[in-house]
């Protein structure tokens, strides 16, 4: 370390460390803007596929509905994982969100089953 740096105060050093930590934290799982555009492109293609599948009248309903649900689920988790950064976020954040999502899926599946939605 040069003699010039001796004049630095402890506060300056602390802020440098904090900046370094922030920098490391930021770049640990950083997705570049170019990759964000590619992810958006994937989402757009999936949306186009969803619409195209519904327009093809020859696709049987038994195949159409699972295909649409699958594409919907992929789009949902791509946005949550990459745009919302939940994939690389803390476990407590994942728990907070997914407990609500899982609770909603279970609760309303039971409700729909009770009203014979899946039978009709």
């Amino acid at each position, binding site marked *: 370390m040069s003699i010039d740096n001796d004049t630095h105060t402890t506060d300056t050093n602390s802020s440098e460390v904090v900046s370094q930590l922030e920098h490391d934290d930021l770049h640990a799982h950083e997705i570049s803007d170019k990759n964000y555009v590619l992810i958006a492109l994937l989402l*757009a293609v999936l*949306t186009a596929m969803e619409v195209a599948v519904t327009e093809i009248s020859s696709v049987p309903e038994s195949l159409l509905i699972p295909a649409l649900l699958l594409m919907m689920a992929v789009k949902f988790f791509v946005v949550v994982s990459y745009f919302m950064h939940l994939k690389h976020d*803390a476990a407590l954040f994942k728990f*907070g*969100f997914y407990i609500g999502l899982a609770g909603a899926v279970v609760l309303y599946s039971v409700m729909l089953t009770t009203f014979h939605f899946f039978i009709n």
Partner: protein
Amino acid sequence: MSDTTTEPPVMPEPETEIPAGYDDGQDHIGLAHHTTTGLSNTKLAMWLFLGSECLLFGGLISTYMLYRNRQGDAIGPDQLWDIPFTSATSFILLMSSLTMVLAVSAAKRKDERGTRLWLTVTALLGGLFLAGQVYEFTVFYREGLGYTTSLFSSSFYTLTGFHGVHVAVGIIMLLSLVGMLAKGRIVGDKAETVEMVGLYWHFVDVVWIVIFTLVYLIPA
């Protein structure tokens, strides 16, 4: 005292790498704000809020699914939906998620001009989506689908209306953020504030991903 005898300040090394989302104990204006979890309380609160929103929209979506064939002699979904138009508005909302994530990315780079630009574009795309929804509602109303026409119409307008209100609130948040950034009125971590608004906006988008498939694409 000569310079050579002075101990140079030692740069303390971080003991471990702080995982993404964890609080390093300092905010960006230098004030300590330790939390019991070591995580940002603001971010934790936002994720818990979004988890609870899943339950709200889950209730509205399942109610719609239950009533979507209950229109009696009134007009039903198959006669109303304009899939190419709704696909276009869905695409607009999807792209607003891209511009939002670019705003967050710019905020993390401390590029304030870029942040304001992408936030404004996101708000404009959101406004375009909302205008499309208002147009769609107007067309449906003219076709004879009022709020109380049938169980189908009530559940449809309630679900998509609630989503539209969320989009409107998001636009207000985005524009307020642009204004506050311009006037330098954000206290604390600007990047985190932009990220919180971003999380809300992306959630509005993922809810529409579900609505678009379950309401518009899956045949009644």
